């Protein structure tokens, strides 16, 4: 039966997080962007929402009913509306946990999922590679089987790093599994020998996010480190989760810019009336609203297909590419509505445009 109504629980969670995003993340975002560092107090508050543990089933140390892509996209949109850098940082461990829940073996779930509740634990994905022909299904990072070990070599970029001292930082590393002849995922502790963490990468946006290039030089892993162990994992499915997650964040970023521009246009006057009363502005705002709603619905549908266990690649790709394009368009229109003020690095919409640009170019950041 067709319905566009989230469950009460989902709605409550989305409302709570959105409230947090608007009251805490948004006000902190400007200075985080300037200082290239997320605000520690805000992050600590965010931890109280336990967005990671909420996905982890009780038998593995969490308090959720298991991972739902739909719940995931509602959370991602809400947080990204506050600050994309913060959302990516906060959701990086959630992505790894989701992959473990979806594709991990029983032993892996038992071994890893309980760690996510620890304050000193951080996890993030390493998917993107720094070459022009980067393709998640034809990676140049290679996992070679040697006896009871995998030996991994290659370079990853845009790996999200913890911003507080942690005892352990694990990566969900995607590499070409030579024996399997396809991309597979591996759980790697960044403290392992052969893992070299580079200096921070810097971009036009996502400036508060610490993301780095990491090289893997003959890193040796036990065979139990391969996600799903002998069975492996369905990488396309994990990528689809990543796609809908990114599309949801793009929706959140676009929504923040749209709503800011909308309220600004009602207050700012020109020629004796609010600029929102001019058709040229009003039409832009109408189109932005339609774009945001479209992005959201495409994302919901793809996430729903994933939760149903359906083949969702086409829907997820459509949702992602649609969101990539329209997030940028909405962010640009928001700057335009503010005119000169939109260009000043103080208003949310200026950062919105820099952040929105990330979606189409950083394919796979914060994977899953």
């Amino acid at each position, binding site marked *: *039966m*067709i*319905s*566009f*109504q*989230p*469950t009460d629980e*989902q709605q409550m969670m989305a409302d709570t997080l959105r409230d947090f995003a608007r009251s805490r993340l948004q006000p902190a975002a400007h200075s985080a962007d300037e200082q290239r560092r997320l605000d520690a107090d805000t992050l600590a508050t965010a931890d109280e929402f336990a967005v990671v543990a909420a996905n982890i089933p009780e038998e593995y140390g969490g308090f959720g009913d298991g991972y739902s892509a*739909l719940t995931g996209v509602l959370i991602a949109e809400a947080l990204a509306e506050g600050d994309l850098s913060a959302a990516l940082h906060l959701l990086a461990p959630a992505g790894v946990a989701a992959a473990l829940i979806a594709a991990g073996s029983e032993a892996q779930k038992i071994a890893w999922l309980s760690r996510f509740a620890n304050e000193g634990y951080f996890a993030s994905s390493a998917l993107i590679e720094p070459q*022009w*022909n*980067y*393709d*998640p*299904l034809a990676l140049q990072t290679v996992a070679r089987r040697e006896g009871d070990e995998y030996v991994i070599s290659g370079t990853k970029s845009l790996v999200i790093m913890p911003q507080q001292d942690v005892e352990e930082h694990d990566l969900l590393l995607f590499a070409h599994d030579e024996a399997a002849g396809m991309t597979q995922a591996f759980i790697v502790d960044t403290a392992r020998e052969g893992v070299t963490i580079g200096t921070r990468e810097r971009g036009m946006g996502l400036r508060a996010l610490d993301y780095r290039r990491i090289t893997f030089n003959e890193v040796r892993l036990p065979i139990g480190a391969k996600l799903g162990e002998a069975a492996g994992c369905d990488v*396309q499915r994990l*990528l689809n989760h990543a796609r809908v997650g990114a599309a949801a964040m793009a929706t959140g970023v676009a929504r923040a810019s749209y709503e800011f521009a*909308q309220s600004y*246009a*009602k207050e700012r006057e020109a020629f004796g009336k609010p600029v*929102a*009363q001019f*058709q040229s502005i*009003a*039409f832009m*705002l*109408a*189109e932005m*609203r*339609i774009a945001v*709603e*479209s*992005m959201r*619905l*495409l994302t*919901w*549908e793809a996430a*729903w*297909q994933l939760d*149903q266990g359906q083949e969702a*690649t*086409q*829907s997820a*790709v*459509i*949702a992602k*590419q*649609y969101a990539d*394009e329209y997030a940028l368009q909405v962010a640009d229109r928001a700057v335009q509505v503010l005119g000169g003020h939109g260009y000043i690095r103080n208003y949310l919409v200026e950062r919105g445009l820099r952040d929105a640009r990330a979606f*189409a170019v950083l*394919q796979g950041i914060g994977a899953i």
Partner: protein
Amino acid sequence: MIDFSKPKPILMQEQLLDGIAKQIMRPISRKYDDAEVSHERPWEYINAIWQGMQMMGFSGLTGPDEGEKKDRDPQRPPIANQMLMHVIERLSYGDAGIYLSTPGGALGGAAVAAAGTKEQKRRFLARFNDGAPKWGAMAMTEPHAGSDTAAIRTRATLSEDGKEWILNGEKIFVTGGLMAAQDSDGFVVVWATVDPTLGRAGMKPFVVEANTPGMTVTKLEKKLGIRASDTAAINFADCRIPFDNVLGDPELATPDAIRNKASKQGFKGAMATFDATRPAVAASAIGIGNAALEFVEDWLAKQGVEIRYGAPYQQQSAIERDLIRMAGELKAAWLLTLKAAWLMDQGQPNTLEASMCKVKAGEAVTWVTQKAVEIMGPEGYSTEHLVEKWMRDAKINDIYEGTGQINRMIVARNILGYRSSELR
């Protein structure tokens, strides 16, 4: 819970209509696109769908009627409007011009359903369920007033004995007007003002039965697309209709009643109609777009061009990007449309959503079909295929039931909380 699974009745209906679209509509698409001058009716389709509708007790494209509501199992959520969107999408996927010849009340029926009393719904809508095929139509636009609906001049005056309304005026661009006013026992819903000094409040919808003396079809337009459907100019000269043919309570429709109550029911009635018909137009647009996209994909596949979903941007071909974008635009429009219909089924207001899906679908499908012609090059331009026709058919959806601009205005007023006097 958010859910996109189609209920079984919709799936079954969709399957049936898919067959009609492919086997009955497509083979005669070109014939009736060319038959604009002769105004021959697509009886192959009309007879087939009419038979099907009677077998299934399907009441055409008017939307849910009272009977349907009564029979419904209260445990199951209502789906009539969602069903309607799927029906219209599939029939328009067959042929959007021919779809407009589907027997039923069409926009006229929708106006009755939205603004009529229970008695009026029975009196006017029951006819569409049996007997010979009949059509309804709605006459709003006038030569000097299209989008500016409040500026219409057609007058409705009360007869001296107060038992009749007398209509005088000129209506144009009445979709299916010939079928409704002259060629079947249908009716035309005519928007007229009972007193021009009352502005929008004075505007009321009147039901004029087919072949009522004083109502004359004066012209049939030649158009860019949807040529299988007639678009009529209708003249009203001292056209007399019963007092209770004004939709809603007739006692509230007189100038005195309107003045005393300062009621804006009249114009609101028109707006309520649009809440139902705009998603329907969007669904029709999407049907055309889906036809074009599917055709281009098949055409490319035959030449060995495969669309890879999921290839990184820098490795996608221009054609792949175009096709993924076309699919995205259509799907976005469809989900917006479905949401607008779902809200209606829930009994919730949907004015904003109805206009949003109309804006999106009108624009998306105009673009998608133009892109389809472009991708196929000379083959797309050729009348050998239907893609060029779909491009011509698509454009109307960005125009009728409120142009893209009017609907943007409605979206803007809604999201900004402005009245029409504040944003015009």
